[in-house]
Every structure is written in structure tokens, then in C-alpha cells.
């Protein structure tokens, strides 16, 4: 639907470097990256608010590089909501309709249904300064979709909301995406949001797009150590392939052998990525199983986080396993407890080079 073809642009000392990406109709596209990586600039560039120095922007196959934002049909919701403080809620939501030539009275009629849909009819005549964060967010979203845009851009829309309001808003976004078939591009820091919402995603670091593709692929099989770290893979281990027998490799990590599935040749430097929920933790002698990697170690730390617990284990290398708090209690786990860790060779993602 919209594609960036080798886009480069500079803003003061910051620059986007040679960014190419494709967002298809109906995608829920996530852009993730650390603070200052250029996520918002990329979003604004999609909206047409920054003119690229090099490269082309294509919308439905047609070049729109020089097309101003008001003619793109792409709406934007900022993290700070950016409601017009001098307009009431109803005027804020109707702004886009009036800009497209609709009369004030007609726009108000059109907007009334939308306010009902978003559950904000009761605040129609209020000014933004008097609204809660959740109400402001709903108004901003209603304003953005009022003009029926082709693409909706969201800049970290959930970051300023409390957990309960976040859940409600996630449902709103899922509904918008599912029922209206809206193409949504969202900037976020949150892996959880990406898991819940994203169909495709891109990782941007220091102005460069370092990974792009299906959300599950980027999250589970990242292209580089940097991306693995950013998407929150808990166990990232550097090693060297000691032997490879038809794709079944033995990787030496600081004197410990890990078995993994990869085409990397013997002697090649690799990075192993292991999700904490792929690490199975046992107490006592492990029974015979198909698991290729079994190692003994000792618990160094247990971090409880709601219903789950992250268990840090030293088995020569430091590894993290995640299990339910109840499992931890049943196994009487505590720092110093000797345990056995098991990891399937197929659960290890190998990054070459």
C-alpha cells in the first residue's frame, strides 16, 4: 500500500539512512526501536511531514514523495494526543471533516455517531484541558478516523495511560483494525503490544532499519544480536561452531557445548538466541528425553513478576528460565537450589556472523 524505497533524510544532527519498507493494506505494522532511534521521524515521514533528501515514497504504486500531508489521506495520533486546546471535543473530532469542505453543522452531525461509537458523547462540549488521559486518547483516535483515512499512524499511543485504560484502548485498536480493515502503523517500545497487535514489524536503530518482516518472525528469529536484545530475547550467547553434521551444529559457548540447528560451518562465529520460556527447569535427576541440551546449574536469583517468575541460573553460562510462580513454589525453588535446564536444539535461534 505504502512503500519507502531507499529513503534518506536529515533533521539537524539526526538522519534516517536508506530506509526501505513496505506496508500492505490491512497490516497492523509496528515500528520498534530504542529512544532517539528515529521512530517518530519515520512516522512523520510516512505522513509527509518531512521531505526525503533521497529515495521515493510510493502509495498504491504511485510516487507521492512530494505530496503534502493534507493530500495523503494518512492520519496521525501523537503520544501527547495533540488535541487542539482552543476547540471543544466535537470541534476537534470534526476538524478533518471541515477541512475537507464539510459545513460545520453537517460535520457535527457526522461526528455525533463517532462520539457515540467511542463512548465520548458526554464530553462533546468540553475543552481538552478538562479531560482525563484516556478521554483525550479516545478523542484523538476519533478525530483521526473521522475522515476515514487509508492509513492511521499511532506514535506510542499507550505509553501515557494506566494499565486498565491501556487494556480498553488495545481492544479499541483491535476493533478498529478488524472491523474497519484499517491499515495501522504504530510506534512502540512494548513487546507485549507487538505480540498482541502487530501483523508485521520493523526495528529501527540509530536511523537505520535493521530488521523488517512478519511480527512473529522478527520477534522470535531476529536478524542480529542488536535486534535480539531489543525485542527482549532473554538469553543471548556468543559462541563458535565446533562442528556441524548436516545442519545439526555443536556450538561452543565459553567451554559449554550447545546443540542447535543451523547451516553455519565449523569455526564460524554465531550468536545463540533462546527465549526464557523455551528453557525448561527441573529439580533432581532429569529423566530421559529428546531434549538435546541439558545442563546442571544453580539458581542465583528469582525475580517474581505478577503470575510468572524469572529464574536466573548459572550453569557455567548465565541463563534465564521463566515459569509460573506456582511451579516455582511447588518445586521449592530458591537462590542456591541446584537445578537442571533443558533446551531443545530447535528452540535455539542461531544468528550467523
Amino acid at each position: 500500500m505504502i512503500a519507502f524505497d531507499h529513503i534518506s533524510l536529515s533533521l539537524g544532527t539526526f538522519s534516517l539512512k536508506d530506509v526501505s519498507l513496505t506496508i500492505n493494506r490491512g497490516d497492523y505494522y509496528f515500528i520498534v526501536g530504542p529512544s532517539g532511534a528515529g521512530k517518530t521521524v519515520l512516522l512523520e515521514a510516512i505522513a509527509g511531514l518531512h521531505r526525503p533528501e533521497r529515495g521515493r515514497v510510493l502509495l498504491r504504486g504511485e510516487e507521492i514523495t512530494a505530496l503534502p500531508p493534507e493530500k495523503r489521506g494518512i492520519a496521525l495520533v501523537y503520544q501527547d494526543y495533540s488535541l487542539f486546546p482552543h476547540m471543544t471535543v466535537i470541534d476537534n473530532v470534526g476538524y478533518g471533516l471541515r477541512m475537507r469542505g464539510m459545513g460545520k453543522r453537517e460535520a457535527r452531525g457526522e461526528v455525533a455517531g463517532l462520539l457515540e461509537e467511542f463512548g465520548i458523547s458526554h464530553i462533546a462540549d468540553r475543552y481538552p484541558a478538562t479531560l482525563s488521559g484516556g478521554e483525550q486518547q479516545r478523542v484523538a483516535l476519533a478525530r483521526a478516523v473521522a475522515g476515514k483515512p487509508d492509513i492511521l499512524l499511532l506514535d506510542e499511543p499507550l505509553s501515557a495511560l494506566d494499565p486498565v485504560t491501556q487494556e480498553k484502548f488495545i481492544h479499541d485498536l483491535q476493533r478498529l483494525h478488524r472491523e474497519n480493515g484499517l491499515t495501522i502503523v504504530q510506534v512502540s517500545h512494548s513487546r507485549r503490544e507487538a505480540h498482541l497487535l502487530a501483523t508485521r514489524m520493523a526495528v529501527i536503530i540509530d536511523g537505520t532499519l535493521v530488521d523488517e518482516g512478519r511480527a512473529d518472525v522478527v520477534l522470535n528469529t531476529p536478524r542480529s544480536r542488536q535486534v535480539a536484545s531489543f525485542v527482549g530475547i532473554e538469553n543471548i550467547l556468543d559462541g563458535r561452531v565446533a562442528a556441524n553434521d548436516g545442519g545439526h551444529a555443536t556450538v561452543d559457548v565459553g567451554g559449554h557445548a550447545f546443540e542447535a540447528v543451523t547451516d553455519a560451518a565449523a569455526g564460524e562465529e554465531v550468536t545463540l538466541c533462546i527465549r526464557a520460556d523455551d528453557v525448561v527447569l527441573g529439580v533432581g535427576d532429569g529423566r530421559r528425553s529428546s531434549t538435546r541440551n541439558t545442563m546442571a546449574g544453580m539458581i542465583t536469583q528469582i525475580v517474581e513478576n505478577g503470575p510468572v517468575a524469572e529464574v536466573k541460573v548459572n550453569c557455567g553460562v548465565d541463563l534465564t528460565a521463566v515459569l509460573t510462580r506456582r511451579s516455582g513454589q511447588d518445586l521449592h525453588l530458591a537462590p542456591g537450589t541446584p537445578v537442571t535446564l533443558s533446551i531443545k536444539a530447535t528452540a535455539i535461534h542461531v544468528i550467523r556472523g
Partner: protein
Amino acid sequence: MKTETLPGDIRRGDGETVLPWWRQRKRQHIDGCTLWFCIMGAAIVGITVLALANIAMTELADPVHLLEVAASSEVLGSILLTFGAGASAVLLLILFGTPLAYVLARSRPSRFKGFVESIVDIPLILPHTVAGLLVYLLFMRRGWLGAPLSDIGIAFEDAFPGTVVAMLFVASPFFINTMREGFEKVPVHLENVARTLGAGTFTTFRTVTLPLSLRHMYNGAIFAWGRAIGEFAGVIMIAYYPFIISTLIYYSFTTDGIRTSRSIAFVVIVVSLAVFYLLRRMTRHLGRYDDRV
């Protein structure tokens, strides 16, 4: 603790009792540092208060002469001319200074921007006679701008346009800098959102940026108007006649002596105070968008 209801308390429709202003004062703790700051600040305010009290007491002691001066057509005409020329200068500043202020507020720092900002500020740092001379040299009948404009019938020397242009020159930094501050306070995100909602650049400026900067526009206009109507040296270089109020006071002082010039000055003080107070009252709710207050 319940406050005792006394005569004068106001009972609202919802049954709540509102205290009159003289009973609303609250005991406020002032620390030593703030107290010293207040004392030092009072010295500045004190000079102005003393000067005003001095002239007021003298003038009010002879109300017949004061009214005679205040009612003279020369004084009234001069006040109207001064206020009118100041308002014309401010209107021109709003028309031409607003776009400049917006460009300065939104452009990225550069040497060129710094240069333009310095040019804008020049009238602030120049002696007023120098400012007047600059205006005169440019707008006199043989001046770069004065000559062609004179050819189409617009004369500046000893004429109303000369007064306006001199006032505009000295007052411009006050308006442009205040307006620029106002534009800088409008988040760029608001403009970006308006653009994505279908508003062009000028429509965004008209419907979002300008309404949110109205308070600064009014304040800038009031500052500039105050500066303009108080100008003397800058104006007399190009337009000694017709007399604006400061020229009339100077003329009266050098020809009739202190008594008449002091009375004119007192009339100007009273009128100016009244006008500025009214303007402030009229604009106190401007730019506040909160239906809770």
C-alpha cells in the same frame, strides 16, 4: 473551621456563602529572602508612584487650569493623533510582523536567522535620535523609499504617514518578539496533526496556530502601541508637525513653561492609564481554554 456569617457575605444560588473580597485575605507566610526582594522591588515601584503622586497632587490642586488644558482642542487633537498613529503602526505590524514572527519561530537556528533577529532588534539598541535619523533618511522626499512614494502622492515629512512609519520602526521589536514567543509556544505537533487532517499550511496557521497565539498578539500589540505613542526623538526627525503628544509637551515646555506642559502630561497619564487598563481587562480571558474556570 466555620467562618462566621457577617453582613456583606454573598449567598449563592446553591446555598454556598461567598465571602466578600475584604474577608477573603489569607495569612501568607513570607520568608526573609522574599521580604528583601519585596523591599528592593518596592524601590523601583516607589519611584514611579512618587513621580505620579507628585504630578497628581500639583495638578489636582488647580483643577480649573487642568480642565482648561484637558478640554483644549490642541491637546485633544494631539492625543487622538498620537493614539491613531500608534494604532496604525500596530495594524501594519500585525499585518507584516506576524508572518515574520512565525517564520522566525519555526525556522531552525542558522547564521541567517541570527542575522535577521539582530536586524529586528536594532531599534531596541539604537539611540532614539539615530532611529529617527534612519527613518528620515529613508523616507524623506529624496530618500530611497520617500522619493518614489512621494511621486504617487504619499509624503512623509511633517505628515501623518511620517509619524506612523517612525512609530512602526521603534515599536516593531516589541511586537515581533512577543509574537514570535507566542508562536514558539504552540507545539509543532498540533500543526502536524492539522496537516494530516487535511488542512493546508495557511489553513493550519489560520485555524490552529494563530488562535492559540492570540494572547501574545494582543500583548505584543499593546506593548508596541505603548512604545509607539511614547516615542519623541524618533518622530520629530521626520514629522515635527503635526504635533504628537510628546512633541506638544516638549513644545509647550519650551514656549509656555512648566505649568501647561505638566497639565498636558497629567492628562496623557490619566488617559493612557485608562486605555491600558481597559485593554488589559478586555483581553484577560483571551487564550484560556478551560471550561472549569
